C-alpha cells in the first residue's frame, strides 16, 4: 500500500483528504504538529507528499527546497493561491505537480496516481493482467498468440480498471480519466466503449473480466 503524507494546517481539510485517500486505497498520514515539520517529513518515509503552501511558521516552498536537498520523494503542492507566478515558483522549488484549491477529488486522485506512476520504475509501458500482456506503447492486449488492438479510449478505461483492480471504479472516475486525456466522451459513448472492451477481452478468453456493479460502477476481477 502506498503511503501518502498530508501536510495541511486546515484541520477539516486535512481530515477529509485523509478520508479520500484511504477510501482510494492509500495509507494516509497527517501532520498535526507544525513545529519541526521538516524532520517529520524526513521521518515519515512516505511514497508521496501532499504539501500546503501556507503553513504556520514556514512556507511550503522553503520547506520543499530544503526537503529536496535530501530526498526525491514526489511532492504535490496544494494551494489556494491561484496565480501562475505561484505555480512557476513551486515547480522551480522541485514540486512534481501543483493543484489549486478547491480541487475536484477525482482529478486529485488521478494526479496522485500519475505522479506515483512517473516516480515508480515501471517505465517499460508493459503491464500484466492474468496471462494478458498490456502494452500501452503498442495500445494492445496480447494473450499468447492472440492480440487485440485497443482504441485510445478503451486503453484509458482498461488501465484505470487495472490500476484499481478488485475495487469499484465509478463511471464518474472513468469519465474524468477520459476527459483528462482530451477525450470528451458522453455517457453513451462510455457504455459503448466498455462493451467493446468487454468484447475484446472475451476474444482473448476473459469474457467476465469486467463486472458491472449496479449504480456504483465497474470492477475488474
Amino acid at each position, binding site marked *: 500500500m502506498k503511503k501518502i503524507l498530508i501536510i495541511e494546517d*486546515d484541520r*477539516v*481539510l486535512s481530515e*477529509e*483528504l485523509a*478520508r*479520500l485517500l484511504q*477510501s482510494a486505497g492509500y495509507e494516509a498520514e497527517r501532520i498535526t504538529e507544525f513545529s519541526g515539520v521538516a524532520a517529520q517529513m524526513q521521518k515519515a518515509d512516505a511514497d508521496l507528499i501532499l504539501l500546503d503552501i*501556507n503553513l504556520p511558521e514556514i512556507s511550503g516552498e522553503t520547506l520543499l527546497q530544503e526537503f529536496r536537498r535530501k530526498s526525491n520523494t514526489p511532492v504535490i503542492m496544494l494551494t*489556494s*493561491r*491561484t*496565480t*501562475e*507566478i505561484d*505555480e*512557476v515558483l513551486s515547480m522551480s522549488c522541485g514540486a512534481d505537480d501543483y493543484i489549486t*484549491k*478547491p*480541487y*475536484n*477529488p*477525482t*482529478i486529485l486522485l488521478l494526479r496522485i496516481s500519475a505522479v506515483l506512476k512517473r516516480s515508480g520504475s515501471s517505465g517499460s509501458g508493459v503491464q500484466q493482467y492474468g496471462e494478458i500482456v498490456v502494452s500501452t506503447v503498442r495500445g494492445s492486449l496480447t494473450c499468447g498468440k492472440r492480440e487485440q488492438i485497443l482504441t485510445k479510449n478503451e486503453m484509458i478505461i482498461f488501465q484505470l480498471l487495472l490500476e484499481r483492480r478488485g475495487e469499484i471504479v465509478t463511471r464518474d472516475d472513468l*469519465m*474524468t480519466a477520459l*476527459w*483528462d*486525456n*482530451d477525450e*470528451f466522451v*458522453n*455517457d453513451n459513448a462510455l457504455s459503448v466503449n466498455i462493451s467493446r472492451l468487454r468484447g475484446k477481452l472475451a476474444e482473448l478468453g476473459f469474457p467476465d473480466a469486467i463486472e458491472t456493479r449496479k449504480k456504483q460502477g465497474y470492477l475488474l476481477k
Partner: protein
Amino acid sequence: MRLRDYLKDRLPAFLTGAVTWLLVLIFLYTFHVSAEACVIVTGIALAGACIAESWEFLRKKPFYDNLLQQTEQLDRKYLLHEMIEEPAFFEGKVLCDVLRESDKSMCEQIAQYRRETEAFRDYIELWVHEIKLPVASLQLISHNDGNAKYAEQINRIDAYIENVLYYTRSETAEKDYIIKPVPLQRVFTDTALKHRTELQERNITLHTENLNVQVMTDSKWLGFIFGQLISNSIKYQASEITVSAEDTPEQTVLRFRDNGIGIPPHDLPSIFEKSFTGENGRTHAKSTGMGLYIVKKLCDKLGHSISAESEQGNYTEIRIVFGKNDLYAGNLSKM
C-alpha cells in the same frame, strides 16, 4: 498666442490710452501749441506704446504657446506643471505657483486612491484564499459522503469566487501574470474537466481541433477565459462546442464556436461592455453583464485581441488572437 488675441485682450487699455491722448491733444490745442509739435509728440508717444506692447507680447508668447501645446499633448494633464518653465513675468509666475499647488494636491489624491485600491485588491486576494479553504473542505466532504448534489452548488460558489478574483485583477494596474508558452489543449482540457458534470447533464458535446499548439499567455487567466466562454455556451443553450486553433508564423487564432441561440445583430457590438446584458441576458438567462467584460479586460492586459461573430439562432463564435513575440518565437519552436 496669436497677435490678434493679444491685441483684443489689450483693447480696453488701448481705448483708455486713446481717450487720454485725445484729452492731452485738446489741452495742448487750448494752450496754442503748434500743430507740428502736436504731431511729433503724438508720434513719440505712439512709438513708445508700440515698443512697450511688442516687448510685452514677445515676452509672453513663448510661455503661453508652450503651455497650450503641452496641455494638448500631455496624456496626464495634471502633470502639466512638470512640463513648463517658470516665466519672468508676474502673471506667469502666479499661474505656475497655482498649477504647482493644484498638481501636487491632485497627485496626492491619486496616490491615496491607488493605495486604497491596492489595499482593497490585496484584501480580496486574501479573502479569496481564505474562502477557498472551506469550499475545498466542502467539496471533499461531499465527495467522501457520496453526495453529488452538493458538488454542483459548490462548483457554482467556486465559479462566483473566481469571478470576483478576476474582476479585481482585471481592474487594477498591478501585473500579476506571467506570459510564457502555454499548451492550449492542456488549458482547455483542464477547464472542460472543471465543467464536466454541467456539460454532460445538458448533453453538450465538445470538439477540439488543432489545439496542440503553444501560445504566449498566462495559463491561469486563459483557463478563466475558457471557463467564462463555456458557461456562456451552457447558459445560451448550445448543444455543441467546437474549439479550434489556426497557427501561422505571426499569430495563433483561437476560435470558440457554439451552436447556441446566438446574439442579435444590434447587441453584438456591445457584448464586451461592462454591465451590458442585451436581449439574451434579459429573456434567456440571468446575466450580470460582467463575464465577457472581464474576459475582454483580461485579453487587453495580456495583449490578445478578442472579437465575436454570431448569427441569431445559429451560432456564436469568439475569436482570440494570440500574438507571437519574435524574442520568444525561437524558443517556442524548440519546445
